[in-house]
């Protein structure tokens, strides 16, 4: 149930997962402590790194490193996309996934905003793809 809830909760899945665990153990206090513990350390590191980057990103060697790092990060973003789509490549789910992908790519190409693209996908899923929806 916790995994299902974290998948259905908007935003970062792991944070929602920690919130549901904390809620189960100590209700609101547990949820808040779990949320803080799972988000504050990483946020502080990100903040520190971003603040350092602003001070050094004018140096050519740093800029070169950043450009290579951005290429690596783009590969990691694409690998995140692959991990998200993998469960939908099962035989029974492929057709629905293909329909939604074509719809989404068409909307992206037409210049639709991400929110509109997601809303259109939700509507298509809700009204037309519910018979053999991916599990």
């Amino acid at each position, binding site marked *: *149930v916790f995994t*299902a*809830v974290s*998948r259905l*909760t*908007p*935003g*970062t899945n*792991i*944070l*929602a997962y*920690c919130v*549901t665990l904390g*809620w189960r153990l100590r209700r609101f206090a547990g*949820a808040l402590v779990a949320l803080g513990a*799972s*988000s504050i*350390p*990483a*946020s502080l*590191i*990100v*903040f520190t790194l*971003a603040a350092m*980057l602003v001070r050094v990103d004018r140096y050519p060697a740093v800029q*070169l490193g950043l*450009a*290579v*790092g*951005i290429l*690596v*990060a*783009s590969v*990691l*973003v*694409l690998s*995140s*996309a692959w991990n*998200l*789509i993998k469960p*939908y490549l099962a035989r029974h*789910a492929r057709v629905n996934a293909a329909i*939604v*992908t074509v719809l*989404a790519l068409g909307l*992206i190409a037409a210049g639709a*905003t*991400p*929110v509109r*693209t*997601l809303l259109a*996908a*939700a509507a*298509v*899923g*809700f009204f037309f*793809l*519910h018979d053999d*929806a*991916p599990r």
Partner: protein
Amino acid sequence: MNIVLIYLLLLKATATSFAGMGSLPQIQQDFVQTYQLLSDEHLSQAVLVGRATPGPMGAYVVAVGYFAGGWAGAMAGWLAMITPALAAIPLLALVQRWLHLPRMRAAVDAVVVASVALLVAAGVDLAVDGARQLLRLLQ
């Protein structure tokens, strides 16, 4: 920079995504294209910082907030990251009642698949930006 605006824009992105990096296309749309609070380069750096850090993948929104509005922007980014997670509490009660409904599952699954298409488009943009920077520096 208006911190409330940064928070609301980041919240819009995190609240309409179903994965840590899923908010990237909306952030790109709002921060780079519509409001021009960030350059492509800064957004790429924010993603790089977020991915280089252990912890939730969505933590890159803290860097986005920092680049757009300093330390207060970073705080807005953190708040925007954690706010949607609180929705898990009411969802916990609703899920057991609604999750088995085929229409609900199909709608959520369709949103996840569409978010992958958006993420791929954003990832390709990021790669193009990185390649451009690299070529510029090597010239």
